[in-house]
């Protein structure tokens, strides 16, 4: 199985790579349409700005290859900004279109709590989840963001409540994503990554 981390300049790519290595999972980096097309599993890491991410994917001509891969059934995992990029639009960059795998908008979290939402928080599970299998209900995950998807319809399987209720884990068919950083979330984060890899068809 050929697992590729989509390389477009995301700061957390090496961390995700290291987390996979710790699980004994081999991955490579994919930065061209051809590399994406020849991958069996894709991971879209992300940290920073929605508009900058989309511009970077567009410059590298990776937007359509990513969408096509998802349409072919290739498992895709989005992490943090990688989750947000799956939506149609974001308050962070009103003029820029996202990957539009989901039609909703990504919203600025209301400033009722301190922002960014930074640190370890718990989840509220609302639907059965592949990625959270074997993870204790009270587990903490590491978040660092000020924007979030407040609604993903049936795809939102776990929420987090901070300033607003937002989608923390998203699963629909072959599309998976977490608003938190599994690669920075200790042993439970490693479990989430290994659940994804197992579901995607590889070894644990």
């Amino acid at each position, binding site marked *: 199985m050929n697992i590729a981390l989509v390389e477009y300049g995301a*700061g957390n790519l090496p961390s995700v790579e290291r987390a996979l290595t710790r699980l004994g999972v081999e991955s490579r980096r994919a930065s061209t349409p051809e590399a994406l097309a020849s991958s069996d599993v894709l991971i879209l890491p992300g940290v920073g700005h929605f508009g900058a991410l989309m511009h970077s994917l567009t410059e590298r001509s990776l937007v359509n290859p990513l969408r096509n891969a998802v349409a072919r059934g290739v498992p895709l995992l989005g992490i943090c900004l990688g989750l947000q990029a799956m939506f149609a639009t974001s308050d962070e960059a009103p003029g820029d279109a996202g990957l539009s795998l989901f039609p909703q908008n990504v919203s600025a979290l209301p400033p009722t709590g301190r922002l960014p939402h930074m640190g370890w928080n718990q989840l509220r599970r609302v639907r059965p989840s592949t990625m959270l299998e074997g993870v204790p209900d009270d587990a903490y995950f590491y978040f660092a963001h000020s924007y979030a998807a407040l609604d993903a319809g049936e795809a939102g399987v776990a929420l987090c409540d901070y300033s607003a209720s937002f989608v923390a884990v998203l699963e629909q068919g072959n599309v998976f994503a977490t608003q938190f950083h599994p690669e920075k979330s*200790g042993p439970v984060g490693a479990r989430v990554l290994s659940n994804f890899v197992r579901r995607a068809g590889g070894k644990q």
Partner: protein
Amino acid sequence: MSLAHRIIPCLDTDGERVVKGVQFVNLRDAGDPAALAARYNVEGADELVVLDIAASRDHRPTFLETIRRVAAELAIPLTAGGGVATVDEGRAILRAGADKLTVNTAAIRNPELLTVLAAEFGSQAVVLAIDAKRAGDHWEAFVRGGSVATGLDAVAWAHQGVERGAGEILITSMDRDGTRSGFDCALTAAISRAVRVPVIASGGADTPETFLEVFREGRADAALAASIFHDRIQGLGELKRYLGERGVSVRQTG
């Protein structure tokens, strides 16, 4: 369900080795950063900070290698800094494996640096570190490792720094640093009231009670300490159990 208060061990380094001193002077060797990082990762640290307190240009490649070695040991977030004055220096530190940067002296000299760093890496990656010392009825910000007074009011500077783009404040009480006499809760609370970003309290950590105080009275979101953890005076698990039993939300591990 609520956001956990973070406990953050800090590795002050000379670029290569962990060092420690009292009130920013009398430094001595306290171990290998990667070995300490590996220990804290297992023991339940919520984040790790690694600082280059020498911050000389000659040592920068050594420090970047230290960040790489530390990051390789961690499955938790890593914050790094010391002498960062440009976007390129910030990028080098993030590329080496840090999730967040601390900026201190250069931001006071050029507050626009915070805006530029936030635009490039996002506010969530920009931590404004402030070294503050009591001066009558307020606190003054110091730079260059606490050696140079700026005349700036630390609370006002924190507020301005956040306006400029900082996504978190790391406030160190120079009066308490290395003294094990408790965090400066008044300073931390003043900063916490002045900004709407998370605040990390530093300087003076001692018993579990001092952490409880800084979370309650100091309104800190996170507390940072060095020698009490390095010297095994305080265990992370034991500290978190103490806080959890007293109603402070913390991430219990193991």
